């Protein structure tokens, strides 16, 4: 089993479009505990991805992932650019080694998560995108091969976003607010969830 180029392309398109559609929400979350640019940053990055959709999707999966990563790195303009960029670059690198999709999904995703953590010098619990990415990785590991994996990922991501609300930020701009960062959703956690939900929805539609 392998991922068909057409499937990949439609999932990537859906994910990009969902993030772009969520830009106002992401920006308003970032206004509360940051500098209010996460939506415009992600929109800029994923519009650039959409602009290269055909070229990206035409490549082997490993190269496609790296191209997404590089595009985000070069266009996002905020901390989230190198963070998401490193996720995709590392996932592409894993696929360049001995990993394959969908079989090694948890490993490939895990490479991406590790790269975010290394780039951000951060880990789960600091009120960042990692607070969605890490629990989703756990779900992928635990649920590999299970028929309800997509639904589980969906729920994990949604719940993980909510669990950032009571957290106090210790990384990124929200950390400047100290205790006042408590009580708000982390913007990057939310954008991770948007991306994951778009992929889940795309996969469900194909089942």
């Amino acid at each position, binding site marked *: 089993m392998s991922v068909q180029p057409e499937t990949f392309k439609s999932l990537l398109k859906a994910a990009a479009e969902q993030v772009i559609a969520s830009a106002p929400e992401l920006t308003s979350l970032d206004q509360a505990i940051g*500098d209010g*640019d996460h939506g*415009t*940053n992600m929109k*800029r990055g994923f519009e650039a991805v959409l602009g290269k959709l055909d070229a990206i999707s035409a490549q082997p999966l490993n190269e496609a992932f790296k191209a997404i990563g590089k595009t985000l*790195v*070069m*266009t*996002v*303009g*905020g*901390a989230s*650019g*190198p*963070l998401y*960029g*490193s996720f995709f670059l590392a996932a592409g690198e894993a696929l360049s080694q001995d990993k394959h999709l969908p079989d090694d999904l948890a490993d490939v995703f895990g490479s991406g998560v590790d790269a975010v953590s290394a*780039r*951000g010098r951060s880990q789960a619990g600091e009120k960042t995108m990692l607070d969605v990415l890490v629990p989703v990785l756990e779900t992928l590991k635990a649920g590999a091969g299970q028929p309800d994996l997509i639904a589980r990922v969906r729920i994990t991501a949604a719940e993980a976003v909510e669990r950032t609300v009571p957290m106090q930020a210790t990384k*990124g*701009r929200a950390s400047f607010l100290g205790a006042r960062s408590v009580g708000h959703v982390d913007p990057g956690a939310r954008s991770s969830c948007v991306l994951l939900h778009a992929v889940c929805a795309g996969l469900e539609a194909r089942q």
Partner: protein
Amino acid sequence: MTDTVGIVIVSHSRDIAKGTADMVRQMVGSEVKVAFCGGNPDGGLGTSVPLIIDAINDAWSSKGVAVLVDLGGAETNSEMAVEMLEPARRDLVVVCNAPIVEGAVMAATEAAGGSSLAQVRAVAEELSAD
């Protein structure tokens, strides 16, 4: 000229980056190569990896380049930019953990004296609490 460490200034704001470069040049004249960038790829507040890569290459010196940044995203994007340089250059660039304006002036003044990249970095980082 190429026997002094180069200085790159990366701010979220192009105004800050430009003003800092002005202050640096006032202290060191043309003894040190100085390049700066600021703003996201659309020109708003933020930083841009391709602009950072260009600035590092503009300030290139065989003694290396010290990059001064302001907040989080500027640091993350600068570290990313360093990794995207051609391999031979990567190890000769440091992103300093130092305040951008004060660090750039101090780093450039140190660089003008012919100091090594490690010395330039140390002088800038002395200003910082962590």
